[in-house]
């Protein structure tokens, strides 16, 4: 992935939107917003948007802004339920913000907030120990094992055998990933309300977001501990959260 940090600013003015919240006297995030600017609340009936008014001279996207965006979401989420917007959501005016979002989609947004009340997101990744994975694949496949024997120490002669060997292993890795990913997803989903799996590749066996009731975070954590203990040492796990439910907002707010 690459971020063109030095790209020309293209937004002249405009309103950067972080999230939609209930207009119930929620505190403003105590963190700095995009470009180091202030975070404001734009109220509209029983809803409000957390925004930063972008400078007329334009906003130059910095890497730091990714963290600031997340910081605003996390700070607001600590105070209550939020519907996060994707990074880089900018509208032209307060009128647009109200027409297209706060007033225009009021009922689905209120519905989304209600459905996400008391729920958090846990992001889980399972990563292969590469040596163990390859060892297991060699051990389980005679063709791979014998090709490996044949190609060890061969120079240019063994080129096609080595390509064939690599092709077989790559296919085995993918098949294995699919099996492992499905198994891990269903094991952890039992302790969650919902799950969104991300595409996995490279050293990832599984990557996904789980929607978990705040009140059952300990159960989810225990399930994670059990799964991770059972799958080691081939896999190691990384869990991040509780996070604002970014992966579930679009579908839970009626879209």
């Amino acid at each position, binding site marked *: *992935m*690459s*971020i*063109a940090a030095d790209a020309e*600013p*293209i937004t002249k003015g405009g309103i950067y939107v972080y999230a*939609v919240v209930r207009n119930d006297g929620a505190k403003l995030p105590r963190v700095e917003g995009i470009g180091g600017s202030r975070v404001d609340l734009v109220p509209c009936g029983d809803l409000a948007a957390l925004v930063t008014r972008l400078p007329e001279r334009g906003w130059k996207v910095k*890497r730091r802004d*990714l*963290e600031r*965006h997340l910081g605003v*979401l996390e700070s607001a989420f600590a105070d209550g339920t939020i*519907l996060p*917007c*994707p*990074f880089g*959501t*900018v*509208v*032209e005016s307060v009128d647009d913000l109200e*027409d*297209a*979002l706060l007033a225009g989609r009021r009922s689905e947004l209120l519905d989304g907030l209600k459905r996400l009340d008391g729920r958090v997101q846990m*992001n889980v990744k399972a990563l292969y120990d*590469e*040596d*163990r994975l*390859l*060892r297991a694949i060699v051990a389980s496949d005679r063709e*791979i094992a014998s090709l490996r024997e044949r*190609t*060890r120490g061969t120079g240019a002669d063994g080129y096609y055998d*080595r*390509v*064939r*060997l*690599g*092709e077989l*292993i790559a296919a085995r890795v993918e098949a294995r990933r699919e099996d492992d990913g499905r198994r891990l997803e269903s094991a952890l989903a039992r302790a969650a309300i919902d799950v969104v799996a991300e*595409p*996995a590749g*490279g*050293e990832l066996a599984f*990557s996904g977001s789980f929607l978990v009731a705040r009140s059952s975070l*300990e159960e989810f954590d225990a399930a994670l501990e059990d799964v*991770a*203990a059972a*799958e*080691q*040492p081939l*896999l*190691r*796990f990384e*869990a*991040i959260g*509780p*996070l604002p439910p*970014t992966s579930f*907002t679009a579908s839970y707010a009626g*879209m």
Partner: protein
Amino acid sequence: MAVATRGTSSNYLQRAPSPSGLADVINVILDKGLVVDAYVRVSVIGIEVITIDARIVIASVDTYLRFAEAVNRLDLTQTETAGLAELRDGGSSEKTKGVLEGVKDKMTPGDGDKESKKERSRK
């Protein structure tokens, strides 16, 4: 916020309340959330993030050769009962580290961002 009692991190399960690396931050906030209708949305061209579609397996000869090289370097005399630390310290296993990582790199087009490279090497 401290909602749940979190267990301590072990070598097979690491827990963090919040994403720390850039990739994890991006994974949480990019293209995820409430989408504002396109007709009022201002496009922000500065955010030129090339997302990786990890589902695309680059079935290149180069990838295959890397896998072949990795298994050829594996020392099969190390058995599954060997301790993890032993495997990690083994010289041969050290050489094979990063093939899967290498495949992932192949799937990352146009990585011209110095900052993100720095991020990776810091790990």
